[in-house]
């Protein structure tokens, strides 16, 4: 082992050198406004850079240890780094404490990883493990659904949690909708947020200008978004995968720019405000009802509570998300759903078998767009204010990341990924700008280490012969 040490040191030094070259200008010289007409001046941050480079050197060395079988040195190095990060010693910035500690934590995890996978693999092969596995595959969805249904009545359901739950469920629904396009049909759509925007503006305009209610607009918004999906999809769906991605991205930007610049129609960057919320059989959620309406509290004869609106919104989005899921599950069993999955696997073979690829893709595209339209209407009704700001490319990227992280085509994976990607960052609001940095890095790391996502294993929708117990799956 010691013979390989010089090679490992050399590799770590090289990595540190590259890191230094990357950082020397962009990190080392921070440009700051000095407020005069002369422009900028420098704020030198070489100490930060030096610490970061040392951390990268040690981290790379630790990774080399781990991949050469020297697990204990790697874990020890990681532990020392965690201790250093947590210690009160003075580093140039607070971020560096986190950087050192996180690097150490990753090293410890990397060092212990082989044991963890070994133990996990062994546990999964015991009788109990197999039973838990089978039970989990069969019932995990139902358990999650049960939890989701009773959540508003549990003691943890304060306003913050409910707000977050509504947000997560919105993304779960968007994720499930996009899953039809990306996961099942294998079409990379980078402009999904455009359909979300169409739904949101449809509800906002129809309700504020024509006085239509949420439930009346919901199907209309879905139809409008689907129409946009067909209009866009019809010409571009003949394109190959990555071209399609860029065209949809361009389309998403076009929609946003039009919303931003067509001031007469959309009120431009100022957005649309005072959008009415959803109603329950015509009753509104407010302390005092407007002219000619009654409040839900009066209708049900219960005292008014500001949380009621939130709980109602929660159940609305839960219902919408479940409809999306149920619809997808059913579609997968229909010929068109099977054609989607077949097209994803091999387009040429599908053509040879007489499947019309354009029409099949178009249905996936339109149905995915329709669910985005529903979610958009809900978003407008929940926020009561929308502006083009909410529909930037980054939203599309987040939804796509949820689908990809979940494991394309896996419904339960989308839920897990939405909780991870939306829930965790919202809890750690203090992270501020580091949130999106971590988000981007996470996307790369997932692709490199787990390209099939969290729930990568996917049961075929149909089998020619039912799997025999113990047979290969």
């Amino acid at each position, binding site marked *: 082992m010691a013979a390989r040490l010089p090679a490992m040191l050399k590799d770590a030094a090289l990595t540190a050198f590259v890191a230094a070259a990357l950082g020397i*200008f*962009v990190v080392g010289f921070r440009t*700051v406004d000095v407020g005069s007409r002369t422009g*900028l001046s420098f704020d030198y941050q070489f100490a930060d850079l030096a610490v970061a480079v040392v951390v990268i050197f040690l981290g790379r060395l630790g990774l080399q240890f781990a991949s050469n079988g020297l697990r204990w040195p790697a874990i020890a190095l990681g532990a020392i780094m965690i201790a250093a990060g947590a210690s009160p010693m003075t580093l140039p910035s607070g971020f560096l404490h986190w950087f050192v500690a996180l690097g150490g934590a990753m090293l410890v995890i990397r060092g212990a990883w082989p044991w963890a996978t070994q133990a996990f693999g062994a546990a999964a092969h015991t009788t109990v493990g197999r039973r838990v596995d089978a039970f989990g595959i069969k019932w995990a969805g139902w358990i999650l659904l049960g939890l989701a249904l009773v959540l508003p009545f549990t003691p943890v359901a304060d306003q913050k949690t409910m707000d977050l739950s509504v947000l997560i469920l919105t993304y779960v629904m968007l994720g499930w909708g996009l899953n039809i396009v990306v996961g099942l049909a294998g079409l990379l759509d980078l402009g999904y947020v455009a359909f979300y925007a169409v739904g949101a503006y449809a509800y906002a305009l129809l309700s504020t200008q024509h006085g239509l209610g949420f439930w009346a607009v919901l199907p209309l918004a879905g139809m409008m978004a689907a129409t946009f999906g067909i209009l866009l999809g019809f010409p571009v769906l003949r394109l190959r995968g990555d071209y399609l991605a860029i*065209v949809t991205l361009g*389309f998403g930007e076009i929609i946003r*720019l039009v919303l931003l610049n067509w001031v007469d129609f959309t009120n431009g960057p100022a957005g649309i405000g005072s959008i009415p919320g959803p109603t329950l059989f015509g009753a509104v959620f407010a302390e005092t009802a407007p002219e000619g309406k009654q409040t839900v509290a009066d209708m049900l004869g219960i005292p008014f509570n500001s949380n009621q609106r939130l709980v109602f919104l929660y159940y609305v989005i839960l219902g919408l998300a479940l409809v999306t899921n149920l619809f997808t599950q059913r579609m997968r069993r229909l010929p068109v759903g099977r054609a989607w999955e077949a097209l994803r696997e091999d387009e040429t073979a599908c053509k040879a078998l007489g499947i019309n690829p354009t029409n099949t893709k178009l249905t996936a595209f339109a149905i995915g767009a329709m669910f985005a339209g529903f979610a958009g209407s809900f978003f407008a009704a929940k926020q009561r204010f929308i502006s083009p700001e909410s529909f930037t490319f980054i939203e599309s990227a987040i939804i796509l990341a949820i689908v990809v992280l979940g494991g394309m085509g896996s419904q339960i994976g989308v839920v897990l990924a939405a909780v991870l990607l939306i829930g965790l960052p919202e809890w750690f609001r203090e992270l501020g*700008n580091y949130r999106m940095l971590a988000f981007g890095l996470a996307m790369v790391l997932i692709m490199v280490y787990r390209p099939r996502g969290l729930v990568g294993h996917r049961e075929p929708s149909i089998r020619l012969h039912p799997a025999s117990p113990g047979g290969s799956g």
Partner: protein
Amino acid sequence: MAYFTQQLVNAITLGAIYGLIAIGYTMVYGIIGMINFAHGEVFMIGAFISLIGFMICSLLGISSAPVAIVLVLLIAMAFSSVYGWAIERTAYRPLRGSFRLAPLISAIGVSIALQNYVQLVQGARPKPGGQVVSGGFVLFSADGFDVRVSWLQIIIVVVTVVLMLGFTWLIAKTPLGRRQRACEQDMKMASLLGVDVDRTISLTFVLGAALAAVAGMLFLMYYGVIDFFIGFLAGIKAFTAAVLGGIGSLPGAMLGGLLIGLIEVFWAAYFSSEYKDVAAFAILVLVLIFRPTGLLGKPEIEKV
């Protein structure tokens, strides 16, 4: 007529910058068939390194504009290349042989991460600077309208043309270019015949990043202000240029860049400046629908 000529001059300058970025897309796509979505961010980082380079030059008391430009150009190219190399090594190479969309998704991740990295270390506010060349001359006057050409516009066009010629020569005549073309045709066969495929791909990214850095420097000098978000829009437009010209073709990238510059400038000049980006995206959609191989591209034959 004078107004038209003025817009033409401006359009060619803008088109030259787009063309330089587009070459990076086209070369990478030609070799490994992926859209390097993070290329626009390399352009942005090149612009930032140039900004810092110009500031260092003025701190060191280098007052001669040509010396400063050459110095900053070299620095920006060298250090942006490291970004290009590092991105390929960490985010794309492990994914070679993964499913088709994996590198694209990884590239989007890189793009988001780099934008936020620059925002964190350099701040979100627009940064002014880099205006080392000023002045110009009046080409001609007509209808009481002076057609001005600035020295900077001339520098931009000359630098672009020189780099273009250099690159065409590099691809056509040097051993590196030969290896690149071999990898483009058949990567497996090339590696069997002794071409170091990994190294060739790395070098392609390095060259693309260096050109993006040049474009970044020219952009900074031309507009005089940059921020961490410039890479997104410029990247998409340059990609549009690459597709328009025919992806995989070097002259195509340049031609596409020029056309996108023309469309954008003339749309803003004669119709509305709010919708100039819409026009550029609409062109992308139209080209892909009616001529997916672009103007100078070769049709792609799908084999089973």
